[in-house]
């Protein structure tokens, strides 16, 4: 089955063919008492259609990096270009626009809106993106079908299992046909089976052309990606292509 918005986007990269281009990214958390240098100069270039796993010990700066990649946070120093746009120079309003149009973010703890149904949760980004009501409903149902949860349209998050919630969250992240799909330990709160299930969704999406970056502790899952970036103490220790990436 060919569903258009799962397919590879060609407008997602700049002239160099990079969706993401990071140079010298530093992040310093200043809590007043102490300063934590969470990222100490990160350079990453991501090509369209890549599937990247970020690994590293706890506190190495994975989430910090993902937040910056997802425009949820801004770097203290360095340049970040997303689809050719200099993101580090944008204001709150513009960042919201970028998060809506170019990024799909999946969290470890799902972060669905508890008052809304599965379908409404998937619709939310499209509401912010000013997609017409009919188009919104159509896309949301298609996505539900794609993740195999079409019978859960009216279910509230509390009525769903962890794996189902995470799939809804992935569907929500895909709703605006983002340039990149970011997921910070998407399987962290799931048992092995659901975790593997969710990972399969990512693999399939990638095979259909989506650019995906995930953080994971699970090396077995990481190996299913095409490239693994290893962080340590806020720096990239290793950046290598896997068997799948060749």
């Amino acid at each position, binding site marked *: 089955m060919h569903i258009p918005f799962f397919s590879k986007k060609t407008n997602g990269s700049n002239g160099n063919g990079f969706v993401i281009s990071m140079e010298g990214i530093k992040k310093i958390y200043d809590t007043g008492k102490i300063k934590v240098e969470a990222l100490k100069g990160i350079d990453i270039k991501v090509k369209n259609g890549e599937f990247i796993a970020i690994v590293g010990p706890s506190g190495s700066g994975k*989430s910090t990096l993902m*937040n910056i990649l*997802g425009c*949820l*946070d801004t770097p203290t120093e360095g340049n970040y270009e997303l689809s050719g746009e200099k993101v580090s120079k944008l204001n*709150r*309003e513009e960042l*919201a*626009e970028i*998060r*809506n*149009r170019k990024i799909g*973010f999946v*969290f*470890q*703890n799902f*972060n*669905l*809106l*508890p*008052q*809304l149904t599965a379908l*409404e949760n998937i*619709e*939310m*980004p499209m*509401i*912010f*993106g000013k997609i017409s*009501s009919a188009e919104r409903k159509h896309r949301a149902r298609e996505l539900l079908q794609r993740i195999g949860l079409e019978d859960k349209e009216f279910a509230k998050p509390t009525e769903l299992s962890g794996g189902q919630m995470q799939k809804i969250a992935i569907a*929500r*992240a895909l709703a*605006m046909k983002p340039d990149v799909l970011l997921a*910070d*330990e998407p399987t*962290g709160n799931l048992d092995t089976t659901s975790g593997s299930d969710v990972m399969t969704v990512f693999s399939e999406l990638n095979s259909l052309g989506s650019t995906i970056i995930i953080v994971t502790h699970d090396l077995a899952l990481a190996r299913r990606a095409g490239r693994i970036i290893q962080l340590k103490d806020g720096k990239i220790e290793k950046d290598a292509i896997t068997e799948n990436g060749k």
Partner: protein
Amino acid sequence: MNREELKIIFTLFFSAAFLRKKRAILTIAAISWGTVAILLLLAFGNGLQKQLLTARKGMGENLAVVWPGETSISYKGLKEGRRVVFWVNDISFMRERLPEFEGIVGEMTDWSSTLTYGRKTVTAFVTASNWEFGEMRNQIPEKGGRFFNAIDEKERRRVIFLGYERAKELFGKEDPVGKEILVNNTPYTVIGVLKKKLQMGNYSGPDSHRCVIPLSTYVAQYGEQRLHNVVLKISSPEKMKPALDRFKQVMGVKAGFSPEDTKALHIWDTVESSKYLVNFTVGIKLFLGIIGVLTLLVGGTGVANIMYAVVKEKTKEIGIMMAIGAKPKWITTPFLLQSLFYTFLGGFFGLVISAIIVFLLSFVPTEGSMALEFLGKPTLSLPIGIFTAFVLGFVGFLAGHFPAKRASLINPAETLRYE
């Protein structure tokens, strides 16, 4: 924003707040109370102002009353301490030489006339004046009667116009018009009775007790030639001051006093005193309005508190919405709407309660009590409504703005950080 989107926003933001019914109800009650306070205070202020101004007009508008006094400085060889006299003849002189006045009448007053009707006799003051007095001094007759006219005056008819209290005193429930009464044993025909009116400020006595007869009749009967006072009417208030200056000049020459002499004439310029009255009532309304606004602001802080609580409670949801691309406007608008909703709901109840109170007060009899007649007539008006709606909007906006601002500054990364 279409209906569906509004529904979603509603579920997201309003649901939690409505669950805290008690708090919401208390806050709405506070806003209602503030609205009632502001509306009623202004309504009373308005009623008071209206009554005061009608009362002021009760005597007639744009008038000045002038009594001749005693000179305090010498004038053209005449020593100070002379009595100034206005004669009956001076009326036509004044009318000729002072055309800036729209009307000029002279008055004589007999302080202790005896009035007799049948077996009833009372001692009362009787005013004699020109026929124009009726119009100028707002002597509107009850149905079936009239004030005396130019012919009555010319023919020196013995006709009398009675104040309504005086008429009641003499005639009880009987209709006085057409009846004959004795004024100092001379028969006069009652041609009219003054219609009830609210009057504030009077000289020689309230119009409700005044009996008026033609000046010519009085002069013929008693041979009196000195006027007790004159009443001047001007077409518009701002002309009063210069016209009175001219009056002093013209009459100074005629009656022999210096226009600078402050004791020569006693002048009551009602235009001037009305100004104070208006300022006074505006001041009262301002004062009452400020109290009302402050009361509403207190209610507004209640709404703001609820909003802050909602922001706190919804921090995570707000973070999620921001993470998936909600612009600040999407976050702030629902808070503003919600705050305005509470405020206007409270305002609506307040308006209804105030309207009921004002409506019920209109049934309270106020007659007979001066204080009630002035205070017991609260009036709600469009400007008051607009003002109150404006204040409510302002309070609601403020109460929503700051919490909304706080919400829009939520850092999504910080909020959604997984521990």
